[in-house]
Structure formats: structure tokens, C-alpha cells
């Protein structure tokens, strides 16, 4: 095998090389937070490059959701799939992307349970960079998933009045909230024993948050207690803001609530993640 040949062929390239290399290993000035974050982002992109199959999960699943719910519920709820699609598509986009954010937690857990995280921990670096960088890499995956869902929607008859700009702004709101909620999964990644259990823990939260919202039907048709939950569910506001941006309608307070809830989630789970990073062994 070539592997064996490599190690034996290079066997004699003596230790004088090594000595030279070691003599030049002087520590440069410490990398700043931006460089550290971007380096981890680069790592996440390299992983996509070497394992394009991981894009499969995050793209096929959202496309499946869009097709299923459009044709399953469209006739019943709106009388026509095309009419229903106008309302559903922004909602499905939110649901699909929020669901795939769980991969962020799983990937971090896998880093932690394998040895590579130990190396990062022994480096004198700005630690949040390793988490944020990974999330930035994931944002690329979410964007790809989001764009594919919108394109599928357009093929099925989705006609957003806000045009490309409205859709792009809507997508950005979804990405912003995804970034915030990912901190919940990164905290879970430090507590749960395996990548699989990290995903499972996320699913317990993400399923009610997305299904018990205004994605599929008008909350006015639902019982009061459910309306009360939907009213305080931040996903409802993400969906409303996304719909309004995509259809160029007045935003109201929706966007403000998205910003506030995102800030609150990051303010709680960001420091919690970093505390667990430091203290969980």
C-alpha cells in the first residue's frame, strides 16, 4: 500500500531537518480574535469541501419538507396549493433551517469527544472563536439550503412581492436567528455524551418550537392556550418577519422581537457554552 511506502521511503530524511525546523519555531504575536474565528470558519468550509455528502442532509431535508407540506396541507388549509405556498414557504424555510442547526451541536460534540478539541484547548487562543467560526461555516450550509428551498418554491409557484431583495433580507433574518439558537445546541454539545444524543436533545426543543407556531396555519383557528404559547414563541416572530420582508409588507414589531429574542438567547447560552467549554472535562 502507498501508505507503507511513504513512511519507509522517507525514513532516512534525517533529524537535521527537524532541528532546523525547530530552531525556527519562534512564537509569533498572538492571533487576534478575528483571525482565530476566521480560521475555524475556514476549517468548517474545508470539511464541506472534503465531505460534500454532509451537504446532502442539510439540503434534501428542507426540500422534502417543502414538497410534503405544500401538497399535504395546501388544499385543506388554503383551498389551493399555490395560495398556501405563498404563506407556507417562508415558514418552511424557517423550520428547515432551524432543524438543521442541530448539526452544529453534533459537530461540536464530535470534536469534543474526539481528541482534536484537546489540542484547541491547549492553545492560547480566543476560545469563543472555535465555536463562532464553526457557526460561520455552518451559515454557508444554511444559506445553500435556504436558497434551494426558495428556488424550489419559485418552481412550484412561489411569487414573493419583495423580489430578490425581499427574499434575501428574509433569509438573513432566518440566518440571524439560526446563529442565536445554535448557542443552545453548542451548550448541549458540552453536556451530552455523543453527537447523536446532542441532536436528540435539540430535537426535543426544536420540534415544539417550530410546529407550535404560525408556520402551518393561522393561530386564530387554535385554542386559546395554544395561541398564548404561539404568541411568546420567538419562531412565530421570525416567520412573520420573514414573510413580511419577502412580500414587502410593513414589518411592525416582528423584527424587533426577533432581535430581542436572539440577543436574549445568545446572552444566556453564549456565556453558558463558554463556561462549559472551560469547565467540562
Amino acid at each position, binding site marked *: 500500500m502507498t*501508505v507503507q511506502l511513504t513512511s519507509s521511503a522517507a525514513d532516512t530524511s534525517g*533529524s537535521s531537518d527537524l532541528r532546523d525546523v*525547530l530552531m525556527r519555531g519562534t512564537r509569533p504575536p498572538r492571533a487576534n480574535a478575528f483571525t482565530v474565528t476566521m480560521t475555524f470558519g475556514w*476549517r468548517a468550509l*474545508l470539511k464541506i469541501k*472534503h465531505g460534500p455528502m454532509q451537504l446532502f442532509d442539510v439540503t434534501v431535508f428542507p426540500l422534502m419538507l417543502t414538497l410534503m407540506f405544500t401538497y399535504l396541507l395546501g388544499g385543506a388549509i388554503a383551498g389551493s396549493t399555490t395560495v398556501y405556498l405563498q404563506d407556507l414557504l417562508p415558514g418552511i424555510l424557517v423550520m428547515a433551517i432551524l432543524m438543521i442547526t442541530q448539526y452544529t451541536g453534533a459537530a461540536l460534540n464530535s470534536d469534543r469527544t474526539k*481528541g482534536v478539541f484537546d489540542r484547541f484547548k491547549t*492553545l492560547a487562543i480566543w476560545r469563543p472563536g472555535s465555536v463562532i467560526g464553526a457557526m460561520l461555516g455552518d451559515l454557508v450550509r444554511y444559506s445553500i439550503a435556504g436558497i434551494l428551498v426558495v428556488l424550489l418554491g419559485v418552481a412550484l409557484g412561489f411569487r414573493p412581492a419583495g423580489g430578490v431583495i425581499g427574499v434575501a433580507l428574509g433569509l438573513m433574518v432566518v440566518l440571524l436567528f439560526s446563529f442565536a439558537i445554535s448557542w443552545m445546541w453548542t451548550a448541549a454539545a458540552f453536556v451530552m455524551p455523543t453527537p447523536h444524543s446532542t441532536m436528540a436533545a435539540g430535537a426535543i426543543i426544536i420540534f415544539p418550537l417550530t410546529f407550535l407556531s404560525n408556520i402551518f396555519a393561522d393561530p386564530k383557528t387554535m385554542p386559546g392556550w395554544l395561541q398564548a404559547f404561539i404568541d411568546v414563541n420567538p419562531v412565530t416572530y421570525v416567520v412573520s418577519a420573514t414573510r413580511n420582508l419577502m412580500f414587502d409588507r410593513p414589518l411592525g414589531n416582528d423584527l424587533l422581537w426577533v432581535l430581542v429574542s436572539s440577543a436574549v438567547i445568545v446572552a444566556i447560552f453564549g456565556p453558558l457554552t463558554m463556561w462549559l467549554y472551560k*469547565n467540562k472535562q
Partner: protein
Amino acid sequence: MIFPLRSEPAVEATGLVKKFHAVKAVDGVDLVVPRGGIYSVLGPNGAGKTTVIRILATLATPDGGQARVLGRDVVSEAAKVRERIGLTGQFATVDEELTGTENLIMLARLQGFSRAASVRRASDLLGAVSLDAAADRLVKKYSGGMRRRLDIAASIIVTPDLLFLDEPTTGLDPRSRAQVWETVRGLVEVGTTILLTTQYLDEADQLADRIAVMEHGKVIAEGTPGQLKSSVGVGTLRIRLREAAQRPEAIRVLAEDLQITAQEEADAVGLTARVPGSDADLAVSAVSRLAGRGISVTDFALGQPSLDEVFLALTGHTTDRNDQEEAA
């Protein structure tokens, strides 16, 4: 700012304790590792070696006692310690989903090298550990030995003052093992202090200037390899006879003429005897006595004490294999 003196030890630990639930993985470890050279912590799996390394490398906080690495406290000055150490963990601490080059570039960037300098550094290091040909292959396709060497390269992107190597050769074939040893010796020459853990006495013996023997979370002996071996005071003489039928007579001859108590091995022509120190004369006279009595010997070997024998001598019992697997 106070700069630690050069003469300060690389590691100075007193009374380290680390508990996992009710079990004390590390139970009052004192350790002084001088600057320069190679210091080895020797012991079976589950002895607490890895936990000690993790505490010293700031990956775990001790439940008791304290440790200073290069003059800095591992808990209160962890960030300062991290700037001057390197770690190669027991399980490869490189990213399997990246290539060798990408791993090193990433780690160089994280430590402050510019983009161009990172690329250069990665290529230099890959050359120095003989991985140039595999530079652009994904690490998951590397052999165990290649991974280990990449791992070491990753620990020396910035030449550390102190490098922790946690069982760097466990599971490697002899050639890969020799390459790792060569790299380790090269590091010592540039002034890096090495703290390495191992399960193999011969590895500690080959490399280390001093050895601490650990068992059940405690250091049970400490000294130079020579001191340690003479304290153990036994070697193993192995003899193979031509005729299995002559074995009982051979045992009798060794016992009567040389006061050597030989034991039968599973192999019908094999004999094993524990002999004082590494006394080559005794081995030679054993063989010639046997020949003088018409017992022909096909092969004999005088081995240094095995890890089991070191343990037997130090603790009065051999290492318990089942115990080790579980605690690993």
C-alpha cells in the same frame, strides 16, 4: 513582570489529586521534572498517567494539590502555561477530516503565524517528520504511525519549552516507533523538555533521563533508569533446549549448580528463570553448565526486567491486566 528563572523546574507538582466520581484517578502525586531532557512517567493503563498529563497541560483542574509548569500555576495562570507547552494526546489530536497540510496550516494560523508563514511552516514540519508525500491526503487515510508523527508536528509548530507526549508509541509498529523516538531526541537537542508517558519499560529506558513509576494514582518509585532497574534487581533468563525430555534435568542442574530457580514455559522446550540484575556472566555460565552435562541449548536470551517484574518488585504483585483495560 517577574520572569521565571531558567533553573526553575519544568514541572513541580505537590499532592495532586483528581477524582472521577468516587475513584481517585490521581491520589497525591508529587512530581519534579527538571529542565531539559526527557522525563518518563511509566505505568500500566489506568495508573493515572494521562490524568496527570491532562492536569499539567491545563485540560483538567486538580481536586487537590497544586502544580507549576515552567514556573506558572496550572490553574490560576493556565493561559500563560498554554503559551509554552505542546501536547500530543493519547488519542490523535488532529482533525481526521482535513489533510495533513490543512491541519498544520490551521494550527499555525491559530497561533499567530501569517498566512504565508503558516503555509511555509506546515510544509517544513511535514518534511521534518517525513510526511511530505502524504501532505495532501486526508488524515483519516493515514496509518497509525503517520498520524502520530503529524500529531507531534502539530505540537511543535511553535517550538514548546515543554512537550507532553501521552503514550506516543502505543500501538505502533517497531519502525514507526523508532521514527517517533528519533523525533523526540531531536526535540531535546533544541532544548525542549519532554514529559512522556509510556507503558513500556524499554521505551522509558531508551529515552528517559529520569522515570517515575505510577500505579493506582500514586508514584511508587522515581529515579534514573539505572537506579530503577537495580532497585528491581532482576532480569529474565530464557533458555530453549533441543530435547523437551531433558528439561527436568536442566532445571535440576541450574538449581544445584547455580542456585537458579527455573520455571517451565508453556513451550515444552522453554525455561525461564529470574536472575539478579543484568548479570551476563551468570547467563553464560548457566549455558555452559548445561552443555557440560550434555544438555544442548538451541537459544538463550537475557532480558532486562519487564514492566511486570518492576511492578512485582515494587509492589509485591504483578499488574492486573483486566484492571487496566477497564480503567483505560
